[in-house]
């Protein structure tokens, strides 16, 4: 019995290794090198062997693991299985704990400038993920161009703040509104279409915005982007060493100057923005608008039969999601102090979408984990640029295969009769 299993597994692994060798042959076995005289060809036969060997052992190992864990690899779960009538007390506690950790993070003994900076980056993606979650997770609309709204927010802030000297707190809503208007402008014609068309149109929109940013040099600075974007101030107090216009942050509070102040301030700023997004989503889910979004995701035809205007409802979701991207974009611009079209390529949209889907569609905490995993973790491997992205792509595939519904897919109801009855008695 075991001998037979081993035999089939060996054969299986041999076949896999053979396929791997064939796959590796053209692209790993040969190497194109360009020199002054033109292209030439190098040979790297050992790589083909390594690839085949790696796949052979990997395949055998997976077979063994699967044998050991058996049922754990069973991935079939139905639609209502992710539903839990339990309000998820453990999850709520966990959420509060996460918020507490986030609040004290900069003061923890091992925290340094680099860590807080990385945490800020993760929080940007958490916020973007939560924003996109409205569109994808709640309303079930496939948006592949979310980064366009992020870009609009960033450029809106940079241009408004730089040209008109408008403060961050005034720019923030304006950038959000502008992004939302673009969302409506784009959504109005296309939201009536089938879901997959929406995907391609949003993808195209993302590219169009990038092309425009790149080519409309007079306004956007073209490929060079916009630099010396106004940095954030603490209610008017700049975080610089000295300021010609008045006291700086460290002077006002009588602290020695330190560049860390700004980094910590930015961290708390994005934490506040992200928490605001979270509260918004928690509340809207309990309102008719949010329920209509989820209902639309579940069954559009049934929604129509109950008098819900699907186009308008989708448009609201699309614009709301865009608005939060606009907020995040403003923050990004003020944090970087420099923006260029490069920061808003398709890969960003893909990362944000991956954060939402891998987190577990619609799950707020899942998105935090996915952002930590997909954005935070790779930050430690910055030096390995290409290998990092290679692993990133592979991880996206593997996580989907392992948990097609995402890491923490679960939904609990937004209103409970049982709880109301308890409250009444």
């Amino acid at each position, binding site marked *: 019995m075991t001998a037979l299993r081993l035999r089939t597994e060996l054969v299986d692994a041999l076949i896999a290794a053979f*396929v791997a060798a*064939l*796959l590796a042959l*053209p*692209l*790993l076995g*040969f*190497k*194109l*090198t*360009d020199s002054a005289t*033109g*292209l*030439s*060809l190098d040979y790297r036969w050992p790589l083909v062997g390594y690839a085949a060997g790696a796949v052979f052992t990997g395949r055998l190992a997976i077979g063994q693991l699967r044998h050991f864990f058996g049922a754990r690899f069973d*991935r079939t779960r139905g639609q209502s299985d992710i539903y839990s009538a339990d309000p998820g007390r453990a999850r709520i506690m966990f959420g509060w704990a996460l918020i507490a950790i986030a609040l004290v993070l900069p003061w923890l003994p091992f925290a340094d400038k680099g860590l807080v900076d990385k945490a800020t980056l993760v929080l940007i993606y958490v916020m973007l993920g939560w924003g996109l979650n409205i569109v*994808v997770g709640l309303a079930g609309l*496939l948006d592949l161009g979310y980064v366009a709204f992020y870009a609009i927010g960033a450029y809106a802030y940079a241009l408004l703040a730089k040209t008109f000297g408008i403060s961050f707190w005034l720019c923030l809503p304006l950038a959000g509104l502008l992004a939302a208007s673009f969302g409506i402008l784009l959504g109005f*014609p*296309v939201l*009536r*279409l*089938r*879901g*997959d*068309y929406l*995907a*391609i*149109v949003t*993808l*195209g929109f993302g*590219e*169009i915005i990038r*092309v*425009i940013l*790149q*080519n409309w040099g007079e306004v956007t600075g073209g490929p060079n982007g916009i630099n010396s974007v106004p940095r954030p101030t603490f209610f008017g107090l700049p975080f610089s060493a000295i300021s010609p216009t008045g006291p700086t942050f460290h002077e006002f509070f009588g602290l020695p100057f330190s560049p860390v102040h700004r980094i910590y301030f930015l961290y708390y700023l994005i934490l506040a923005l992200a928490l605001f997004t979270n509260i918004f989503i928690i509340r809207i889910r309990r309102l008719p608008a949010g329920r209509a979004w989820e209902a639309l995701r579940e069954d559009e*035809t049934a929604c129509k039969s109950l008098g819900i205007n699907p186009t308008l409802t989708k448009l609201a979701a699309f614009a709301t999601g865009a608005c939060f991207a606009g907020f995040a974009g403003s923050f990004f611009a003020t944090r970087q102090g420099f923006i260029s079209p490069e920061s808003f390529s*398709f*890969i960003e949209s*893909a990362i944000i*979408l*991956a954060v939402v*889907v*891998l987190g577990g*569609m619609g799950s707020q905490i899942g998105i935090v984990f996915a952002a930590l995993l997909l954005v935070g973790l790779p930050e430690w491997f910055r030096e390995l640029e*290409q*290998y990092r*992205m*290679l692993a*990133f*792509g*592979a*991880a*996206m*595939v593997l996580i*989907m*295969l392992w948990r*097609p*519904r995402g890491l923490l897919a679960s939904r609990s109801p937004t209103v409970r009769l049982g709880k109301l009855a308890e409250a009444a008695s």
Partner: protein
Amino acid sequence: MDYFLQQLINGATLGAIYGLIALGYTMVYGIIGMINFAHGDIYMVGAFISLIGLMVMGALGLTFIPLALFLVVLLAMIFTALYGWTVERIAYRPLRGSSRLAPLISAIGTSIFLQNYVQIAQGARAKPLPPMVRGSVDLIHTGNFQVTISYLQIMIIALTVVLMAGFTFMIRKTSLGRAQRATEQDMTMASLLGINVDRTISITFIIGASLAAVAGLMVTLYYGVIDFYIGFIAGIKAFTAAVLGGIGSLPGAMLGGFLIGLIEAFWSGYFSVAYKDVGVFAILVLVLIFRPTGLLGKPEIEKV
């Protein structure tokens, strides 16, 4: 006028390439209803394999160009098809039957993986290739009124038309085509009726990838330079072409491909090169608004 005709020829060449890639999108979408996001990168892999194939032919001392090209087409189709098959096998098949988003994310992951894989394996710098198929025909030449078509352009358009006709015939008339259409209609029912659904889907990916490989070879010859990033934008445009023609429809993909090529050529020629992609998408949006199922897609009323 001569400029117009010249752009028409250039656009048709470009369109032939888009059309070949679009076929892969439309077939996969038709059969399993998924946007195979990695298809553009399969095309890129095809371009690299073609380029390496051409170099190998050179290294082997095969200088008779038609024979070399023929062998390279064959090899590129085989090896690229293997990539297409593997991607389906590993990244998509286990996700069949789960939500619509799971395979899409997996496809995006595959796309990122393939791009970086080729970048690591072959380097990030663009790879130039000296022109191999030279010469052209003057279609019209009177005074400063001149329209030419190169042999390469003729070859690209002719090969595309032949391949498209062949595959359309195959899908319309053979048992493989019947199996594909049955799987498209109802996967469960098809498998109950004894159709090997897994194999049918695998073959669909193999065909799509081999057509993309041909497109890859053509692009390598036509532009004479490729890099690991070409799959993304060509992929988007080819998918746009498939949607424009009516996704799921083979003639639609070809028509859409040619139209996108023409729009791009004329937009670059008459308006602005920088904004040519904007033109392509603007027209896509217009078509979708006025004809939501694309040009040749069957208008369907959803059964309630």
